[in-house]
């Protein structure tokens, strides 16, 4: 069993302890050990990149939770902001070379833009799109995801080679300013962990704030929320923009870690990103603060487990079957545990197998 898998399983267990509402002491111990474990992990692991990737996807998952979980608007095109973030970092953060024209200010400015530009685009798109409800909103966002990818695929240079995006070939990241070259894997690990933790922290704060309660009210009943004095238009746009900012940051990290971005389906505009971020929330618990955190780790642990099993004699077939298993897990999850693992560990009467059958009966016709 790989060290990463052990770390992930440990983190899942400890975060479950940390979510036990009724036992404050247990919570503190669980939380403390969790922090220790995640700080120690990169020194134990021989493949930190897997954990870094887990945090990156987790950040986007936390972002989706703000619009999809808190506000109840099932956005299915978050990859648009993921890709925008990656391009924003490239354009503002990368030094120009003869091959590619970028602004090359600095990496920190690049990251700032990777949050700001997606947020701004989300606000502009959200103004009309957030007036749609249900399936129509979901499909419109799906369409936005594809449209933005196609725009990047077609646009090469803007304003007489001021900025070039490379069209269908995209941009490469290798030429980073010298001062930033030390952004090595250890630093990447801790910075992504920090952003991940901060985004969970933001949603924790949000869940207790007036703004957060406004979002909950919109999710539960938009008409009732409006007559209570909530400006639903701006609240929804705020939530969508915040989600986009987090997703943009995550996408920027993915671009930086990958070393290059291209507007293809197998790269920074992989349409499955839109779905992974939702699966993460679903695994943990949609609309809860800890849900996307635990969900991201469970998701990564599943991946890691299947990957490590491949090397075990007799389990080589798992490589081929990985996605089949993934699909089966999604199906079983929505059938039996649509409220995520937090429903199990927070159930008042403790764990019971009946939770599964009750969930299914509740939604069955």
């Amino acid at each position, binding site marked *: 069993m790989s060290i990463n898998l052990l770390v992930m399983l440990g983190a899942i267990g400890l975060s479950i302890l940390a979510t036990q509402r009724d036992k404050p002491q247990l919570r503190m111990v669980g939380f403390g050990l969790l922090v220790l474990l995640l700080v120690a992990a990169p020194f134990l692991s021989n493949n930190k990149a897997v954990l870094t990737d887990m945090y990156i996807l987790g950040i986007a998952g936390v972002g989706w939770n703000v619009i999809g979980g808190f506000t109840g608007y099932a956005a299915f095109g978050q990859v648009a902001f993921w890709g925008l973030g990656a391009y924003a970092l490239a354009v503002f953060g990368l030094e120009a070379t003869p091959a590619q024209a970028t602004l090359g200010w600095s990496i920190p400015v690049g990251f700032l833009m990777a949050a700001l530009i997606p947020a701004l685009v989300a606000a502009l798109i959200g103004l009309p799109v957030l007036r749609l409800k249900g399936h129509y909103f979901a499909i419109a966002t799906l369409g936005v995801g594809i449209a933005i990818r196609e725009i990047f695929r077609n646009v090469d240079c803007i304003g007489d080679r001021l900025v070039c995006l490379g069209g269908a070939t995209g941009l490469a990241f290798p030429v980073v300013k010298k001062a930033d070259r030390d952004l090595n894997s250890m630093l990447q690990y801790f910075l992504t962990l920090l952003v991940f933790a901060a985004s969970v922290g933001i949603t924790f704060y949000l869940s*207790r*704030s*007036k703004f957060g*309660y*406004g979002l*909950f*009210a919109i*999710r*539960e*009943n938009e*008409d*009732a*929320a*409006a*007559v*209570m*004095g*909530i*400006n*639903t238009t701006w609240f929804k746009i705020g939530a969508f923009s915040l989600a986009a900012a987090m997703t943009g940051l995550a996408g920027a990290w993915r671009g930086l870690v990958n070393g290059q971005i291209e507007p293809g389906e197998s790269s920074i505009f992989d349409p499955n990103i839109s779905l992974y971020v939702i699966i993460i929330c679903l695994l943990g618990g949609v*609309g809860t603060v800890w849900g996307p955190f635990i969900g991201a780790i469970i998701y990564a642990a599943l991946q890691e487990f299947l990957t490590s099993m491949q090397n075990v004699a007799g389990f080589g077939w798992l490589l081929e079957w990985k996605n089949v298993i993934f699909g089966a897990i999604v199906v079983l999850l929505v059938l039996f545990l649509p409220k995520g693992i937090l429903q199990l560990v927070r159930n008042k009467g403790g764990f019971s197998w009946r939770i599964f059958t009750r969930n299914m009966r509740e939604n069955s016709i």
Partner: protein
Amino acid sequence: MDDNVIMLDVQGATKQYGGVTAVSDISFVVRPGEILGLIGPNGAGKTTLVNMISGTAVPTYGTVSFKGQLLNGQKPHVIGKMGIARTFQVVKPFQNLSVLENVAVGAMYGKGGSKRSSAQAFKRAEEVLQMVHLAPRRNDPSESLSIAGRKRLELAKALAMDPELLLLDEVMAGLRGAEVDEAMDLIRSIHAGGITIMIIEHVMKVIVGVCQRVVVLDYGKKIAEGTPTEVTSNQAVIEAYLGKKFAKSQAKE
């Protein structure tokens, strides 16, 4: 009560959906400090009228103004912040929030909301729950409440907004005898706290019991206005409620 001061002024309000006229040329006023009743049989246009006041529907013709400010075309949230709170006939609790959280949302965003922090809003919500006798259920999920409980929650959510004018859309519907009396007491105590109330009902007993003045609607038109005694003896009202035949037989006796 000053008869010359007007809080809510409805002038010629008309609402058409496609070719159907739901409410036709209705005018009345609500004065500060009073309890006005709005009654009428099912389908008389009562809820449409409430929707026009609270901003969820825009009048096709006519005007609605509150303390001199025109409400036509204002967004519901602006009207909520101006000091008009309403309940919904079909109750709309925030299902996945607790009873206390439901009420706290009202305290965060109503007229008094902007000056309250989240913690202060929760404190205010506690007070309101005491008032409507839901305090023991504060941490229960709102969907676990009975019909009567949900109606009181609906009222609490509106009250927490610190409104000047409270529109109660059939808060008695579905309640049993003793529950109706409790609810009437509650409405009287809210009124005693200085809130102007417009109460929409089709149960005559409630109107007679608590209202000072009554407006009667039938088929989208205003057919009578006056004190409860005046209105209940009005020929047109009796016809609307009990049918023409019954009214005629009454008149002969």
